């Protein structure tokens, strides 16, 4: 009969209307932004930020200005100028670290390629500026955020990173210790070494 299909559809809509009142918690999902905000997912990513350890954002900065992120960034939104000391030697620290948020497309590749776990993805999303040119270029000061902040937005990932860094530090310490021990042993040894070890080229008697 003509019209049954429409009636069936109407019944479905009516069913949904009733269903909304029967299960309001599940069905009424509108969030009254900005009074209410949804809890962000841990993986949620927006713009990059720089992690620093300790209290001093300048000294504790993990970034060594290696420029890998600058090279890999697909839209080229990162600008890094490494800090140089008086002799022009690299100080392994950025003098300038700018991210142009007007260009950044939040892809997260910078965080992925960073070998020092310095650059990570933030979850702030209310970024506005009066000036669309200079206002959207974030400098090192705005980008630097503490490790505690990193832990507060991404607890699982931050704990994992901390563990990995501690492990690397431990290994570096051990190898440094071993190196020092070797150097100390080598300093003592040379006096007797030539006599003890014959060179491989010399034919055995």
């Amino acid at each position, binding site marked *: 009969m*003509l*019209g*049954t*299909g*429409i009636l*069936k*559809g109407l*019944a*479905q*809509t009516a069913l*949904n209307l009733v269903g909304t009142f029967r299960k309001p918690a599940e069905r009424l*999902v509108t969030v009254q932004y900005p009074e209410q905000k949804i809890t962000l*997912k*841990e*993986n*949620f*990513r927006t713009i990059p930020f720089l992690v620093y350890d300790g209290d001093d954002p300048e000294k504790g900065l993990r970034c060594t200005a290696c420029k*890998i992120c600058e090279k*890999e*960034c*697909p839209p080229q939104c990162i600008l890094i100028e490494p800090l140089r000391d008086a002799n022009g030697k690299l100080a392994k620290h950025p003098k300038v670290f700018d991210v142009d948020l007007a260009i950044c*497309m*939040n*892809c*997260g*590749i910078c965080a*992925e*390629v960073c070998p020092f776990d310095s650059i990570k*993805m933030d979850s702030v999303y209310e970024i506005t500026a009066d000036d669309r040119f200079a206002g959207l270029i974030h400098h090192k000061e705005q980008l630097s955020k503490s490790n505690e902040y990193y832990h507060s937005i991404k607890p699982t990932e931050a704990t994992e990173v901390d563990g990995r860094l501690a492990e690397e530090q431990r290994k570096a310490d051990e190898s440094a210790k071993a190196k020092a021990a070797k150097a100390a042993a080598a300093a003592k040894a040379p006096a007797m070494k030539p006599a003890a070890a014959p060179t491989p080229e010399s034919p055995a008697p």
Partner: protein
Amino acid sequence: MNSEPAKLENAPLAKPYELRPKALADGGQPGELLEISMGPQHPSTHGVFRMDVVLDGERVVKLKPVFGYLHRNHEKIGENTTYLGSMPYTDRLDYFCSLTSNWAYALAVEKLAGLQAPERAEYIRVITAELTRLQNHISLVGFLLQDMGASGTPLMYAFREREKILDLFESLTGARMMCNYMRFGGVRCDATADWISRVLTLVDNYPRFLDEYEALLTSNEIVVARTQGVGVLSKELAISAGITGPCLRASGVGYDVRKVDHYSIYDRFPFRVPVGEHGDCYDRYMLRILEARESVKILHQAVREIPGGDFIDPKVRAKGFKAKPGEAYGRIEAPKGELGFYLISTGGASPYRYRVRPPSLINLTVLEDMCLGHTVADAIAIFGSIDIVLGEVDR
């Protein structure tokens, strides 16, 4: 001062314009053809597309799709950035299905570099791709109905379900639409057990939603009257024009890259390829619903069987990735059709040639053939049923 306007030497003469054409000898009105420009063409809309339609009364006698407004040099950019750097750009090809675009590109690079993703990564890829297909097909039906004048209900229902899938994408990849998730030789991060169980819940509830959606639309007299027999695409034309995806299958050709190419692990899933009969708009609508049902089956099995292990080949380095010289074509069955990436490498850090075969663009080429003889309102329905995304058409 001379107030007379300057006369140009070669200024065109005003066309003699008659309000009403002269009557024919037998007293009938000959009518005039009217050329109009249809489509969203404001630069701030997300998909800018124009149809130059020539109308005889309300019938379409000529139609020329005009596109390219959203061209952003995707392929040239791909030749100048690193292999990894192109990955986020592929999100922006078909922004409705970023995960399948990612996959096609990753597959092409993997072929080029001779990589193989671990088992778990393949399963995660299948799960994300099928979820993408679910949300694409359902929202397409919503958009189609919206275009035909059913403003509201079908699209709202579709978006309600799509939201749940986008939430899953967000917790897995960090972004709702621009996922940037696939990597060469795997995926970027692992799926947690919690995420998998959430997928299972969603998949369990999905057939019920599809039933609901079908109750709303499938036998609705208005939908039937507006779509059946409208925009028929013949089997022969579909094949010769290179149409792929649901449009081709609705015309009665059982061609699915998942079955034909045996890429990834699709051989392990016993799903069927639904095929249409008439090739009209109704078949194209129905096919999407049926495909969604098959995707649900695939998802059920994939979620049940997902193994443990690595999610990315540990030998692959993201930064400084280089492929050995050669060429490769990687293709997958994206929700809109066959999406392929053709890459030529000369051994450098970026491809020498980078070419995309977008399903939307090629499916759009038969728009005129499908629309001729139909009314303007039908042309909109036909256009909607092809399922295009302008990001992919214009690149």
